[in-house]
């Protein structure tokens, strides 16, 4: 089967930055997985492969017999007498061939099904596991690195399953069978062959080693060249404005030439392997012929399992077997690279699979309720628009606390990395319907606070309570459902505008989504899009402006209709004029909700009930806008523009 560079990613996978590190235990795990996914098909395939390997190794036995028949009859030229014997062997061979064809058709089809099925299951398992990983994982790993599990590593397993494994079983079996048959014919001749094979192994090691060394260098210079191209292509407009074209070309050319040199050496070595192995095979073939001739002529006593004497009818099939043997050794040698890369790939995939998923010990859940005449709450199935926390207690009782949006942080300490505290002793009380703003320089800990409220990260010390319930007791999905977030960096998903708004609440009707868009002030521009709400967004909505993307993100949060909203620089990319329009929507959106606002523009936080000024993880000032201005502290300085925020 031809090698297909999957997904147009031409560079050999698994070679990036000296990554190939063979971890054969991972390989074993991958193979085990294959057998677990296909407990019946996989063993059946192995049987088919072995059978077909066995059959393709045996013709030499028949050839030997047929040549013996020829030898017996050709001096008399009596075809009539030879014919039945020849035909008997030929038809036997034909039957075997038919069986071999059947089994090889079966196993190649099975392999095609299993390879893709395996990759699909593995891909889904990886993806599913990834969804369950804590946010910390995504914050501490580069996205490119995570992507490479899907684009590179899984593909290395494709080569393993579809090619290397069957080849290994098949060629391995053929080599074994042929080897036994050779011993059956003649020890001496086998010995000559072994000597040749040892030489071939040696050459593979030297040439293959050189090729691997330079391929790693090539990958490194490819990455460097890519870096230079990326930087300069990104900055192409700056290059033009500064007439810096010639200098860019020179900087690029240096890397390009280096890449070429390493690539040339790597490929020269790699190309060498084919002709060298091939011709070593040829020389070995000749050597075996000569050796056979010498044995025949000198009449050395043959040593063999069969005890048969050495003759031309042994030599002819033996030469054929020598070809087959070296051919298969060659095939095996060529799989080594695949196998090493696949073990590296498997190792990386399993490192992701072994990452512990986000734990959730929460048992307090969010349910729909209706209020009974006596003021108590009763759980219902349908959507009532009224929510409550269902709180089972240790003593078996059950209480319902209405969802109000009261969030309190009490003396919270937090560090992303042990020893590097990001928040110290932070206390924030947000009553239902209050607007709390955080102000401070980049890195002061504003976003961190919001990360703790929705439990993207867990606090080190202190308490966070939501409607009086410790957030650690609340099931994460329910906690997050009760909190809407709009982030500075908007992420939209491939799909229509409507799909993207509905992401906030999957069962929202079209009308509800439109209503949310109107609230956010997004309806206006959406209806002017070529397909309106049905306009497809791709690539994170590149066809929209940054401001428009943010408006959709706001609508998405609005449709979820949560009692608490977190707005992290939600309007930073909207120009002030548009913001004035959005502000009305935002004001409506914030009405009656507890809102945490982080904003760069102080004009957006001005009307908050309470403003917290953060500095290096501590709240240094708190109070209303008027109070803080009157105090003439840090907030006052920021507000009057005496300080730069970033």
């Amino acid at each position, binding site marked *: 089967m031809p090698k297909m560079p999957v997904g147009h990613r031409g560079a050999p996978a698994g070679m990036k930055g000296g990554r190939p590190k063979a971890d054969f235990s991972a390989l074993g795990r991958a193979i085990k997985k294959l057998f677990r996914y296909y407990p019946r098909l996989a063993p059946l395939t192995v049987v088919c492969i072995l059978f077909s390997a066995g059959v393709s190794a045996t013709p030499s036995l028949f050839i030997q017999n047929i040549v013996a028949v020829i030898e017996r009859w050709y001096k008399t030229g009596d075809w009539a007498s030879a014919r039945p014997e020849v035909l008997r062997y030929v038809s036997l061979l034909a039957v075997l061939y038919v069986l071999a064809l059947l089994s090889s058709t079966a196993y190649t*089809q099975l*392999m095609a099904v299993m390879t893709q099925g395996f990759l*699909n299951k593995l891909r889904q398992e990886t993806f599913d596991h990834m969804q369950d990983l804590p*946010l910390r994982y995504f914050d501490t790993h580069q996205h490119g690195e995570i*992507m490479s599990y899907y684009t590179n590593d899984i593909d290395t397993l494709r080569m393993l399953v579809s090619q290397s494994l069957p080849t290994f079983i098949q060629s391995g079996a053929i080599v074994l069978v042929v080897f036994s048959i050779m011993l059956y014919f003649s020890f001496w001749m086998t010995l000559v062959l072994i000597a040749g094979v040892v030489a071939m192994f040696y050459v593979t090691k030297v040439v293959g080693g050189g090729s691997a060394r330079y391929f790693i260098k090539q990958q490194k210079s490819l990455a460097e060249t890519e870096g230079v191209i990326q930087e300069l292509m990104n900055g192409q407009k700056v290059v033009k404005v500064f007439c810096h074209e010639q200098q860019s070309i020179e900087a690029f050319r240096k890397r390009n030439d280096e890449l070429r040199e390493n*690539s040339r050496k790597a490929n020269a070595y790699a190309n*060498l392997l084919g002709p*060298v192995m091939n011709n070593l095979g040829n020389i070995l073939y000749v050597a075996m012929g*000569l050796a056979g001739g010498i044995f025949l002529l000198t009449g050395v006593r043959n040593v063999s399992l069969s005890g048969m004497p050495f003759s031309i009818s042994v030599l002819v099939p033996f030469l054929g077997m020598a070809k087959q043997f070296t051919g298969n050794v060659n095939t095996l040698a060529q799989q080594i690279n695949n196998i090493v890369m696949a073990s590296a790939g498997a190792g990386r995939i399993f490192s992701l699979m072994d990452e512990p998923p986000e734990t959730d010990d929460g048992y307090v859940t969010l349910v729909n309720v209706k209020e009974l005449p006596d003021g108590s709450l009763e759980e219902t199935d349908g959507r009532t628009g009224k929510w409550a926390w269902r709180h089972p207690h240790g003593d078996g009782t059950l209480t319902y606390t209405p969802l109000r949006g009261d969030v309190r942080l009490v003396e919270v300490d937090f560090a992303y990395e042990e020893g590097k505290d990001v928040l110290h002793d932070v206390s924030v009380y947000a009553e239902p319907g209050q607007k709390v703003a955080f102000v401070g320089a980049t890195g002061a800990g504003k976003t961190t606070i919001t990360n703790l409220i929705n439990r993207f990260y867990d606090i080190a010390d202190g308490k966070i309570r939501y409607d009086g319930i410790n957030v650690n007791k609340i099931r994460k999905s329910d906690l997050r459902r009760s909190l809407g977030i709009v982030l500075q960096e908007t992420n939209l998903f491939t799909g229509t505008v409507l799909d993207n708004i509905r992401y906030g609440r999957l069962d929202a009707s079209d009308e509800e989504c439109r209503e949310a868009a109107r609230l956010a002030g997004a309806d206006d521009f959406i209806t002017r899009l070529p397909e309106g709400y049905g306009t497809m967004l791709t690539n994170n909505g590149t066809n929209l402006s940054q401001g428009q993307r943010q408006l959709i993100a706001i609508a998405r949060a609005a449709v979820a209709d949560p009692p608490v909203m977190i707005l992290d620089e939600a309007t930073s990319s909207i120009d002030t004029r548009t913001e004035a329009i959005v502000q009305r929507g935002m004001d409506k959106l914030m009405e009656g909700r507890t809102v945490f606002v982080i904003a760069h523009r102080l004009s957006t936080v001005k009307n908050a009930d309470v403003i917290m000024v953060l500095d290096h993880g501590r709240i240094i000032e708190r109070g209303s806008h008027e109070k803080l201005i009157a105090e003439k502290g840090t907030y006052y300085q920021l507000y009057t523009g005496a300080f730069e925020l970033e």
Partner: protein
Amino acid sequence: MKAAVIKTLAGSLREFKKPALLTLLLIVGEVFFEVLIPFFTADMVNMIKADAPLAEVSALGGRLALMAVASLLCGAAAARTCADASTGFARNLRDDMFTRVQSFSFANIDRFSSASLVTRMTTDVTNVQMAFMMVIRIAVRAPLMFVFAITMAFIMGGKLALSFVVVVPILAAGLILIARHAMPAFRSVFRKYDKLNQSIEENVRGMRVVKGFSREEHEKTKFASAADSICVDFTKAERIVAVNSPLMQLCMYFNMLFILTVGARIIVSTRGTVIDVGQISAMLNYGMQVLMSLMMLSMIYVMITISAESAKRISEVLAETPSLTSPDAAVTRVSDGSIDFEGVSFKYSESAENNALSDIDLHIPSGATVGILGGTGSGKTTLVQLIPRLYDVTEGSVKVGGTDVRCYDTDVLRNAVSMVLQKNLLFSGTISENLRWGSESATDEELQEACRLAQADDFVRAFPDGYETHIEQGGTNVSGGQKQRLCIARALLKKPKILILDDSTSAVDTRTDALIRAGFKTYIPETTKIIIAQRVASVMDADMILIMDNGRIVDRGRHEELLERCGIYREIYEQQTNGGEDHA
């Protein structure tokens, strides 16, 4: 693959034509010897069978070994020349593309995203390099091997070679059929697969949103259905390709049975005079060679089809003509910093429905300070980009120093018109290296002077390495405000006649912003200054403020005038000053 694409790409082969042709020659040699080997081996077997003297057998063996060595040498030399040619070709392709992009105008750049240019120069070139290598090694090798092996088979085996008459068409037809069916299937799978990877990327990037909305299960379901659909298609494609190997086996087996039966008959009935036992094994050998060469041909067919897409994408870049070039007999001196727009309209592409700018008439005297305000998409950036001729007007004309910008040498014009772009960038390298983009020959004093003017000198000195501080790619190790001030300093180093700041102080605090503007007034009074801003404060004291909306200048005048008569201006002003000054 289209001929035009091949022609475009072949233009980059240049000095590597020689090693490429040499590779072809060497491979002819390699194949020649390789094919002779079974022919003489057959003789050797026969000699042994006929009890020929050992000396004769050894002599033949020696000759055979020599042939193998000759074939090996040719092959090894070809390995070198082939690597030389293909990697050299790849280097030239990258170089040509990069150089071509450097000559692109902004309009050209807009057509290709920078990410796609990176892919074209890396992955696509690698694909073409691989295909090229395959072609020069195998495209000659396979047909030659095929012809040689068949010829030898007929010379040696006579009637035995008739087997090929049956087998070759079957295999060839089968391979073509498989490739025909499999390729479209694979192509569609690859497209879907790229989409799947994109959606994974989207998921990883948006993980905060996914988790924020507790959409993990939703994402899993979405992914599973996309992955399953790929699996179905992929399996279909792979199953078609999987027929290859049994088909090949079928032909080999048929060949084997035919040669054994007919061969045995010929040997026995002619008493070994026409052919002998040795020829049987040689014929089996030739059979393998013939079939393998067909297999290789089908492989390059697949390889070429896969790389065709890449080749097309490369040739698109190479064939793109820069839409904007300096005229012959260009003007090489910009007399002063005056700017005139006369009846200017502009669209980004001919097919665009709406004008990005309409009916712009504007005169800016040399040395004036002009502020531009307006909402997103109102045409502010578009307007200023016409001044250094980053785009050409659709209608009307833009003049700098009284001369149409299209008459200038573009380098001269752009050195006189210094622009700080909205999407600004520093490059990896030291601060002083970055600043010297403005003027390569600038002295250290000049760098510091520019930085003082841009209010950057203080913070640069505060860095441990001062002006030799290393800037990471994309300038991630300096804050937004610092980056903007460095970019202004870099632009100032050009000592331009016109300085354009496109929203270049948005992250700078108001006090520093004011200091920068005050510095401009004092130290570079003759330079024409155009300032696009979000903050009214940044443009309030300009000689003229332009209010833009929907690609038109809707009003112009001084602060006081506009405050009085222009609704939009008043609205922005009040919003920003209401209850205190807005802050960046």
